[in-house]
């Protein structure tokens, strides 16, 4: 295969509900891919499929076996433990490090997202923005080649959004591949290099960010996607 991850003709069904249909997608190293679409369009399912949390009902997903992955969720699940232990547990679960070493690296990761001073605080006592940054630290500590993010800023206030976006930008500049779902077209413009538009589980547009926001190009590619962008921008 070429690239980090490649989905070939993938369908995903949950019982009788088909969440994704005939998805072909290739993610290359260093890309910043935004997955957009309306509610229920299949964005989260596609992220989970690429990350390996959901299995295809048909088709296949190929992954670079050497590439490490991590995922950030809309509402991060943090254990009733200190911030440092929440990061350390992720490292410890991946194996190969002692608990003491995991805590040492966790402290570095917390410093990376500006939470070094909060390392001993109960994770659930942190603000929403801090919790999301803590989850980013947990993901970053795993040194992933590709980071999936499922609407990472949708529950945050503007300040929290800016903080998380700044970290995503830094991670991307450091060479990390980002694949994120978002409803926020401004965020997509700021962070993405490529946009994948989904509707009812089908990929209707897969364009560079410049082409996607060029009305003429998008109109030629997908009338529905063009309408979606117009509606979002209105």
């Amino acid at each position: 295969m070429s690239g980090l991850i490649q989905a070939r003709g993938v369908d995903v069904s949950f019982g009788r509900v088909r969440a994704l249909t005939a998805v072909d997608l290739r993610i290359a190293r260093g890309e910043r891919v935004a997955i957009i679409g309306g509610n229920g369009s299949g964005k989260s399912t596609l992220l989970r499929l690429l990350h390996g949390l959901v299995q295809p009902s048909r088709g296949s997903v190929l992954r670079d076996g050497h590439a490490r992955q991590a995922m950030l969720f809309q509402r991060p699940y943090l254990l009733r433990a200190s911030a440092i232990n929440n990061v350390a547990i992720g490292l410890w679960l991946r194996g190969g490090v002692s608990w003491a070493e995991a805590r040492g690296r966790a402290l570095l990761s917390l410093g990376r997202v500006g939470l070094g001073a909060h390392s001993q605080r109960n994770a659930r006592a942190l603000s929403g923005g801090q919790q999301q940054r803590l989850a980013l630290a947990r993901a970053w500590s795993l040194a992933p080649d590709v980071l999936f993010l499922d609407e990472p800023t949708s529950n945050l206030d503007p300040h929290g959004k800016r903080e998380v976006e700044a970290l995503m930008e830094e991670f991307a500049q450091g060479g990390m591949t980002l694949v994120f779902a978002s409803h926020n077209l401004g965020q997509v413009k700021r962070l993405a290099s490529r946009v994948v538009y989904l509707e009812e589980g089908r990929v209707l547009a897969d364009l560079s960010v410049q082409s996607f926001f060029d009305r003429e190009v998008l109109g030629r590619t997908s009338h529905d996607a063009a309408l979606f962008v117009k509606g979002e921008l209105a």
Partner: protein
Amino acid sequence: MRLHMESFAATVDRAWGLLVGLDAHLVQIVARSLVVSGSACTIACTLGLAMGAWLGIARFRGRGAVLTVLNTSLALPSVVVGLVVYLLLSRSGPLGFMGWLFSLKAMVVAQTILVLPVAAALTRQVVEDVESNSGEQLRSLGAGVAMRALLIAWDERYALLTVVIACFGRAIAEVGAVMVVGGNMEGFTRVMTTAIALETEKGDLPLALALGAVLLAVVLFLNALIAVVRRWRLSTIDQPMLQEIAA
């Protein structure tokens, strides 16, 4: 009527005397109850919490049937459990060679069987709720079934502490099973509930009333403990969520 009132007042007075005087007979029965129910609760919760946590995470063929059996066994009548254990431990039963019938061990076994489904079913529900909302995040970090069960059970420790307390309450308040397998022998297998039943029948109401008061106090203490644990749990978690609700 007046005679009855005097009799009632005298019964309460004598019961009070037994309580404040720490009557040796009463203390012995209470201690035996606590040991039997405490042992049964420890065994049942150790097994039940592990079983429930695993059932909350694992997906396998026949899981639905297992859960149906588990939930049905929540409503096991204690006398039926007593009867089954009696048959198993009686001299002609398959476990008769152990010689446990009419012993504290038999009572512990019976209460363990009675409480085990409660511990397993409630734990399963707690763990499964978290797993269905957030389990994929632990999977994403690389946690397998056993590790997720362990992590979620640990994370929900306050909820599970409530389960343990409820299990102890169920064990210490039951009468049917321990009556059947213990035989209610004085100084040997008599516990609070069986003693209350017997003393009431014999007409020794002061002892029955004193034991009833202790039993009620134990149950009241357990309920208060559950309330404290819940409050503690709320005060230590989800503070941003509480702030959002308050706002």
